[in-house]
């Protein structure tokens, strides 16, 4: 199995995936019961990005941060606020005389700005909080996310954030390919980073901070990089989520959302990018779709199946999560990665002659 062949196969598979997605989209009618599949795929791709970004911090750098929802919110708002067409601003900002921003930027600029703004906030927050260790860091980042949430709903900032009212009427995506491509590119960049010399330094910090520092790795600098980069991509995924939902409100980006993302990362395997991606789709699919039947009454003959009613799905789901957390602590992938090369070797029956270290360089 040589490198070129692996890259080629990957490209073909990605193209095929996008093709299939497009065909699905064109053929599934909004009224059909399969329409849910498209929703799941869209939302799953967005959550995959934020889960991978959280994994970069929690899994690869060993920084237990719980601020992900806060950075998504910053991204979502930045995108929304910057891209609402000027003509609609009067209506969206009806309580604030049309707001203070009177222009709109293109979608791509909006996405980049969303990431950049989240990264900027992360940089500033990181200066003080990254000195803290493990659970103190977790609670401090959670606290910052809550403060941000209060700030964004503050009436005085209304001309900018629309206070506690919704931000809406900004551009949304027309095709399912959009979130897939944006998320895909972002995740690819994260993977490149993880496999670079910086990524290796992150892993050293995760494994043994004291040894890392003694070997000349500047802890403050590298933690700040990981935190800022992770938040950049959380911001981008926030913008994608905003596009998906067609409106955003600060109050939905609460700690429960961060916990959900964390659980996705745990289920996928802390320290596995592909694990996070797979688990995002599974998580969204089961919470939004596959377990839906648990929320409805079912009758077998005259017998009504007990317990089944609205909300039961989430209980079952939570139990499944607990089982994974308690008994399958490695998650789906552990720290391994799914790779096409290895898969083909498995089927091709060829023995692998490359080496781990060399094989990881992309």
């Amino acid at each position, binding site marked *: 199995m040589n490198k070129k062949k692996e890259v080629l196969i990957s490209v073909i598979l990605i193209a095929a995936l996008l093709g299939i997605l497009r065909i699905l989209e064109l053929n599934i009618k909004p009224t059909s019961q399969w329409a849910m599949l498209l929703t799941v795929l869209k939302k799953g791709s967005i959550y995959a990005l934020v889960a991978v970004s959280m994994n970069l911090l929690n899994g690869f750098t060993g920084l237990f941060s719980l601020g992900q929802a806060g950075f998504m919110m910053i991204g979502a708002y930045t995108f929304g606020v910057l891209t609402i067409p000027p003509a609609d601003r009067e209506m969206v900002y009806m309580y604030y005389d049309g707001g203070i921003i009177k222009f709109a930027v293109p979608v791509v600029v909006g996405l980049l700005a969303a990431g950049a703004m989240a990264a900027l906030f992360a940089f500033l927050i990181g200066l003080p909080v990254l000195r803290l260790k493990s659970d103190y860091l977790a*609670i401090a980042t959670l*606290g910052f996310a809550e403060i941000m949430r209060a700030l964004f709903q503050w009436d005085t900032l209304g001309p900018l954030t629309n206070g506690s009212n919704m931000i809406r009427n900004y551009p949304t995506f027309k095709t399912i390919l959009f979130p897939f491509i944006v998320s895909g590119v972002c995740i690819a960049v994260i993977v490149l980073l993880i496999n670079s010399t910086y990524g290796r330094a992150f892993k050293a910090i995760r494994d043994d901070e004291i040894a890392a520092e003694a070997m000349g790795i500047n802890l403050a600098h590298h933690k700040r990089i990981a935190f800022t980069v992770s938040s950049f991509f959380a911001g981008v995924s926030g913008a994608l989520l905003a596009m998906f939902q067609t409106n955003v409100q600060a109050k939905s980006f609460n700690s429960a959302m961060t916990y959900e993302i964390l659980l996705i990362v745990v289920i996928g395997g802390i320290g596995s990018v592909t694990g996070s991606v797979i688990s995002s789709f599974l998580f969204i699919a089961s919470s939004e779709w596959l377990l839906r039947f648990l929320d409805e009454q079912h009758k077998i003959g005259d017998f009504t199946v007990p317990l089944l009613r609205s909300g039961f799905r989430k*209980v079952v789901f939570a139990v499944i999560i607990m089982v994974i957390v308690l008994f399958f602590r490695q998650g789906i992938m552990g720290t391994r990665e799914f790779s096409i090369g290895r898969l083909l070797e498995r089927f091709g029956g060829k023995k692998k002659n490359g080496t781990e270290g060399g094989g990881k360089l992309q």
Partner: protein
Amino acid sequence: MDMLSKNLPYLLAGISVGGQYALIAIGYTMVYGILRLINFAHGDIFMVAGLMMVYLSASLPMYLSIPLVILLTVLIGFLVERVAYKPLRQAPRMSVMISAIGVSYLLQNLALYITGGLAQQYPTIPWISDQITVFGASTKRVTVITPFLTIILVVLLVTLIKKTKIGMAMRAASKDFETSQLMGIKINNVISTTFIIGSFLAAVGSLLFFSNYTGVTPTIGTMPGLKAFVAAVFGGIGSIPGAVIGAFIIGICENLIMMLNQFVKVDISNFKDAFAFLLLIIILLFKPTGLFGEKQTDKV
């Protein structure tokens, strides 16, 4: 006089809610002291206590439902520890914290399922819910008795920890988990006791809290829980008096914000909840060990 009667309710409410936070905060600080675990599910135990009161009082008289709620809450606290934390004793700390988040998620979803997502009206507990007048300000009796009840319970608890054998075991375990095990302390009993005490206080706290804020929703435990944890950190995690003082400070300050809100031009009421976190970040930056915490250094 008008000034006083107008502003006194804020102060009273602050002291009262501070007492309620204190009762929850003790659960956090004791568990953290021994297991080094932020028990994210603790706020939800508090919520579950509130919810059980709603359902039990519907069919049972008060004098039965109150003790029963306390008993059941203690039982749930005990079971959560046995099922979700005990199997992870040897696991990394992060796994246990994630398990706590999982329990929190489960309890909230269970509550959502049972209540159907609607806020449940908390029953009126006779006597403590009565309206009384203090210095011309009208308030519920619970507001006034909360701080006193809190102080009494804390004094009892501190005595328990200082004077009894199990208290000594707890202190030993929080000082050095491993060594205390080697010294023959039955660590699982100590941990269970800690959770039982924490859940008991959370149940009492919920009786007081919901008598003032009558709607019980599945997520209502999150905010008081997080604030109580902040109080514990502020006071120096592991220190019970520290947690109590921290809780009163947070309770009073956030109500002072509401009071200030009448006088300043911009609306700052949003920051009522954010205040606790601001305090947290300030304390972590300038005195990470809190008011009464002990310093720990990494050994190289």
